[in-house]
């Protein structure tokens, strides 16, 4: 038994362990089948999202809101105190993701997904792309004067106070909270009731596309 043999003896039980773990995991992948068979395939009603995140149980809803709302608020505030632009973008990414989950909590699933696709997948990448195009070194930062910061802070706090007063001082008209809206309904409304804004937005997007391409084009001699 040399070193070689030792290695083999050392490895063998470990490999068996790995194999066992793999088999166990495989077995567990089969577990949902049993559960689903018992559930009769009614997974679309009352599942993870609406239960745990959508909050028919108040505890889950509260947990979800405080967790992701807190994350959204925290990262939004973090943006204020970050100097590096890319970090700001990453914090913004966190805010956007958290807000998307808040949309899920508010049963606006479609909106949540669109928030992720458009904001996180599109806008944010665009922003970072913009940063990359316009930055000479990653550590480039611009200092803001103390007075400017103070003025901004004061104004923001005043605004916050005013908004709080407005939000909490108003007796909002309440109705029965609505459940999730099928995406088909949303689509039909978009092409019937909201057809004109929809078309206007389409035209706007075209204009924006052309305008952005025009602005960003390379000047050629």
């Amino acid at each position, binding site marked *: 038994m040399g070193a070689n043999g030792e290695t083999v003896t050392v490895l063998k039980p470990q490999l068996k362990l790995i194999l066992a773990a793999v088999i166990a995991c495989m077995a567990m992948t089969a577990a949902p089948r049993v559960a689903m068979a018992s559930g009769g395939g009614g997974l679309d009603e009352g599942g993870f999202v609406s239960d745990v995140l959508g909050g028919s149980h*108040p*505890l889950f809803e*509260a947990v979800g*809101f405080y967790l992701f*709302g807190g994350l*959204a*608020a925290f990262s*939004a*505030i973090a*943006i204020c105190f970050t100097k590096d*632009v890319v970090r*700001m*973008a990453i914090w*913004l990414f966190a*805010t956007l993701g958290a*807000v998307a989950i808040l949309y899920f909590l*508010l049963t*606006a699933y*479609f*909106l949540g997904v*669109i*928030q992720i696709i*458009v*904001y996180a997948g*599109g*806008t944010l990448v665009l*922003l970072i792309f*913009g940063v990359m*195009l*316009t930055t000479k070194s990653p550590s480039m930062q*611009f200092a*803001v004067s103390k007075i*400017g910061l103070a003025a*901004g*802070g004061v*104004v*923001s706090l005043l*605004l*916050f106070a005013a*908004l*709080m007063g407005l939000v909490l001082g108003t007796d*909002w008209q*309440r*109705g029965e*909270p*609505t459940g999730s*809206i099928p995406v088909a309904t*949303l689509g039909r*409304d*978009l092409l019937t*009731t*909201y057809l004109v804004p929809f078309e206007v*937005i389409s035209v*706007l*997007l075209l204009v924006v596309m052309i305008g*952005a*391409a025009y*602005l*960003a084009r390379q*000047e050629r001699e």
Partner: protein
Amino acid sequence: MLEIGLNHYLVLAAIIFCAGVFSMVSKRNAIGVLIGVELVLNAVNINFVAFGKYSGGNTSIDAQVIALFVIVLAAAEAAVAVAICTNYYRNLNTIDIDRGDAVSG
């Protein structure tokens, strides 16, 4: 406090809104300002959806559609803004928006 209602969302939106305003005011990097704008728009969207949910009836659809439009507009705005930033950088060789005060009175 455990029962989550409309006010919770509105307060959260107010926080994000004010954070966005502060970002817009305190960043000298143009893209930082843009990020502040995105925050503000997101805060508004939270308000829309929350009002839609808690007002009942068909408001929910209206709110979601409007929020959808806001998202689309925000994306469009970001595209144009980034294009403007690129151009700005090409012209002034910096991204500091305080340098772009050619229109000062």
